[in-house]
């Protein structure tokens, strides 16, 4: 049960959050089909850090970007989602 430091609400239990997807699998509606399929259906899936989109579903309902280590669960950063985030 991780502790996620929501930029809007402060530190909250993971039970209030839902994982959505990795940041690099966000697909915009104007992307070409090949890119859409590549993004939707492939993941780096690293045994280390990745950038993930989560939602504080049972709190402020905002979309957050977690830089999180998948083996240790250490969270290096939690930021509000911003569409111009470099991937």
């Amino acid at each position, binding site marked *: 049960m991780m502790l996620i430091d929501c930029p809007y609400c402060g530190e909250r239990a993971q039970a209030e959050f839902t994982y959505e997807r990795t940041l690099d699998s966000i697909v915009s509606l104007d992307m070409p089909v090949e890119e859409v399929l590549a993004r939707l259906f492939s993941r780096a*899936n690293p*045994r280390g850090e990745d950038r993930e989109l989560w939602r504080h579903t049972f709190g402020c309902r905002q979309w957050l970007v977690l830089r999180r280590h998948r083996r240790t669960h250490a969270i290096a950063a939690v930021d509000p989602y911003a569409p111009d985030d470099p991937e």
Partner: protein
Amino acid sequence: MKRYSAMALLRAGLTGQRGWERAWRDPEPKPHYEVIVIGGGGHGLSTAYYLAKVHGVRSVAVLERGWIGGGNTGRNTTIVRSNYRQKPLHDLFDFALGLWEGMSDALNYNVMFSPRGALFLGHSDADMTQLAQRGDALRCSGIDAELMTPDAVHRLVPLLDMSPDARFPIHGGLIQRRGGTARHDAVAWGYARAADAQGVDVIQNCEVTGLVMAGGRVTGVETTRGTIGAGRVGICVAGNSGPVAAMAGLKLPIEAQTLQAFVTEPVKPMIDTVVMSQSLHCYISQSDKGGIVLGGDPDQFPSYAQRGLPIRLEKAAAEAIALVPALSRLRMVRCWSGTTDMSFDGSPIISALPVDGLYLNGGWCYGGFKATPGSGWCYAHLLATGESHPLAAPFSFDRFATGATIDEAGVGFMPQLR
């Protein structure tokens, strides 16, 4: 291979159990193998066994990072069944079930496959229709499935809460009588011993750290015990498919997630059948030792920690008590976590990859154990011939791009919804 039998056991008893040999050798890696299987779980070991036994390919090494059977083979709820709704799935899993039925004899190792029945409970008329539909699909494929009335369910599992105001009232069930459980560790050990007897090198403590490429083709692997050449390399490391595929620069339609299970202290027999549910992620069975083995929801976020969310275990306990109230005072003695290879349609991938000489068997989600022999059989076919076994052909790597996905749950590409 010294054969196991009751007589051999008796003789050994008279000589202080001295006569047994090693179940499998501890070979040094050779410089080159026809086929290298990365991953010494049940799937990898059975692949190696069938490569040698069925296809006569004996120059085979299974490379295991740690100890064989230490991944998801040893971290599941040991349930074996084939009653999936989608035809490609139930055909593959039923082929596996057929192999389970003769596995102990074939391997000369008692894997304790125990067809005590796999029962799905229905909690509403809608559930019962879903179960009937699944059963009808199975029966039309020649696979056993039987709808049960509430009374019949109650007779089979007398401790179920049959009251109409139960939170999950029981309207009946669908049973696959050929389903059941097996001793998970024994599957890895039995295949390792039988493969070893066929000349396969089972090499433990040998981590693959890279792939050797030449001319756009995989020609071997780098390991912690040196470079090993290979004609074909088969990845078989469900739970770690992503990092291994990344060695070839590939990304997969797979995300690693944690699935937990737990077992209670042993008690005298109280539940003889594997009990599951059409609308809950809840699995209940009793091991031969007497512990009630319970499983629940996956953790629904990516992780390799092999450490899960306590609230998932708590939910599984709550649902188990709702179904079998007498479980309330039993105690969880141990829990474990597997890293599952969650594929993006919920079905496995047994396929060539877009790199020559490299193959993948993975993406088994939380359902791989029951497929072990069938998975190995089909993967051995692919690695020996370069062609997909007909049963495995639908489980291709490119099905996501073409749209020919096999989505049993119908929830799409987000593994956390599965």
